[in-house]
């Protein structure tokens, strides 16, 4: 493989050796370190810049994007410890230390939204992580290819909808005059304004999340399933394994790396999960169960202009997210040998 990559600095390319001096970038061959010992040439960075400056220029605009819109906001979190004046400096005016951190730790509504976030995150993970695996296994048993493709097309569809549309559909479905209440009435119950009942919010949120994500979630599992060696199934059958045992001993281990990777990613987004949808679906009546950290800090920061206070909460949320993803990664590397990095 290496010999085929002339741009790779592990070896000079045959083409470059044949045609030197055509203005093509110098290959950095294995002999160069020796040269440096005898005759100190330009430093490695100067040489790389001289050779690849055109490539580096291509990276400039994207790097500017990352610096301005991703890294400056990371530094901007410093306003969690500094007083920010609207219209003032991006990084706040005066140091106030842990004042805002203490403030939200002592705020009972913070602990309410923190609990809500954990519960909604846990419920979402509990349903949205395993169900795609189940659906993928079921789809995999469909022998007719056309039916299988139809099923997949249908189940992917909700993934392409805006969360605003999904929220709109949910509102229509659970409205007092909506189909859900029609069913309730048909079964002899009283129609309920589900969207205004705190006790129903979690059910509504998680089921709509499942509706939107489960089909799309099967893609990677279906891909993983096709890579499992057919001989493994044959061997399992020889050893007398029935279909269930084949699934248990061949199929599930086969998709384990995919599952672990997706689980880590899901855990990484645990804290911010679905907050846009919460923002669309909740209302003051359902705050007791629906309000999550991000919606809380949205109201605190953007609507009430307590930007430093909200930034402190946001920083806390982001740090919990990092701790979650790093520990999930560590645990999975130790336990099953698969990790993101």
């Amino acid at each position, binding site marked *: 493989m290496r010999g*085929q990559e*002339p*741009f*790779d600095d592990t070896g000079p390319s045959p083409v470059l050796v044949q045609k030197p001096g055509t203005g093509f970038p110098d290959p*950095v061959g294995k002999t160069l370190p020796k040269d440096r010992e005898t005759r100190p040439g330009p430093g*490695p960075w100067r040489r*790389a810049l001289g050779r*690849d400056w055109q*490539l580096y220029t*291509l*990276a400039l*605009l*994207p*790097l500017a*994007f*990352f610096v*301005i*819109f*991703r*890294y400056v906001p*990371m*530094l901007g*979190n410093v306003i969690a410890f500094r007083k920010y004046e609207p219209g003032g400096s*991006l990084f706040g005016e005066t140091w106030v230390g842990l004042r805002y951190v203490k403030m939200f730790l002592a705020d009972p509504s913070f602990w309410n939204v923190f609990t809500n976030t954990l519960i909604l995150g846990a419920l979402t993970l509990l349903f949205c992580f395993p169900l795609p695996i189940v659906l993928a296994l079921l*789809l995999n*048993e*469909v022998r007719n290819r056309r039916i299988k493709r139809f*099923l997949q097309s*249908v189940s992917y*569809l909700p993934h392409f909808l*805006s969360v*605003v*549309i999904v*929220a709109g*559909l949910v*509102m*229509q*479905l659970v*409205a*007092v*005059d909506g189909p859900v*209440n*029609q069913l309730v009435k048909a079964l002899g119950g009283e129609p309920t304004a589900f969207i*205004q009942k705190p006790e129903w919010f979690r059910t509504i949120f998680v089921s709509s999340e499942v*509706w939107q994500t489960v*089909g799309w979630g099967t893609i*990677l599992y279906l891909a993983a399933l096709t890579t499992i060696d057919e001989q493994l199934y044959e061997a399992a*059958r020889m050893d007398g394994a*029935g*279909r269930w045992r084949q699934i248990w001993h061949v199929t599930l281990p086969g998709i384990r790396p995919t599952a672990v*990777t997706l689980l880590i990613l899901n855990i990484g987004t645990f804290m911010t999960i679905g907050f846009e949808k919460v923002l*669309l679906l909740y209302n003051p009546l359902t705050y007791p169960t629906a309000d999550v950290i*991000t919606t809380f800090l949205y109201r605190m*920061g*953007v609507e009430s202009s307590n*930007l430093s206070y909200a*930034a402190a909460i*946001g*920083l806390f*949320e982001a740090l919990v997210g990092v701790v979650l993803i790093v520990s999930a990664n560590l645990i999975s590397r130790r336990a099953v040998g698969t990790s993101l990095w």
Partner: protein
Amino acid sequence: MDRTRGYRVFQGINAVILTGVVIVTLYPFVNIVARSFSEERYIVGGQVNLVPRGFNIETYKLVVSDPMFWTNYRNTVVYTVVATAIAMVLTTCYAYVLSKKHLKGRTFLIWVAVFTMIFSGGLIPNYVLVNSLGLTDTIWSVVLPNAISVFNLLVMKTFFEGLPRDLEEAAAIDGLNTYGVLWRIVLPLSKAVIATMVLFYAVSFWNSWFTAFLYLNDGDLFPVTIYLRNLIAGATGAEAAGAGIAEASAAAANIQAVTIMLTVLPILAVYPFVQRYFVSGVMLGAVKG
């Protein structure tokens, strides 16, 4: 082996479950179509299910005659086109650079991007930044902050890495510089991945609403998602709770259904044609994580 009785029973149950999945997935769409063509009084009566009751297209006429709806619809188109163009230029350039394995500092450049997947600045610092840059209430607040999706970037990088090196090399020998190689050799070879990325970006910008919600205050600048959001926000509002379902909010339900239909229509129209590109795009990204 596959013909045991137990397996046939399983196949039967599987068919039932999967049919259920299809019904549950499609039902909300069918219901919204039915509602959008129904008369208000049947919706209020809870009588609209799979077929429209009191078929009419008056509500469509009503929504379509709202100039604000069209302004916002046009904004969505403009934002999607501009944002996708910017995103494609930035993503392609960076992905091409990252695909050059010999490049010094490549690992650092990759980490600059990947780190933002693990840790992000958060809502408030971003909000403060966009305000400080004076982007609020301009199209740039919508099209710039999410110009590069790291996932798309990695998909493209993987694709570029798989291109045959010989061609680029030969072109370089024939006197093309890096820009020429990228423009005249690499991009024409990458039509598949470019099409996929354009789709990924276009759909995400078409569907986005939160950036616009956060940074735009002027109704003339809203995308159609905000138009729809404002309609449904009227229905979530607590004020409707005490009064029960008044005449006004029932009319809103009818208009909501129509607006949902009109907003979702472009996606539904292109979906059958583009769906397989998405699938292959996701697979491509999955190859090397």
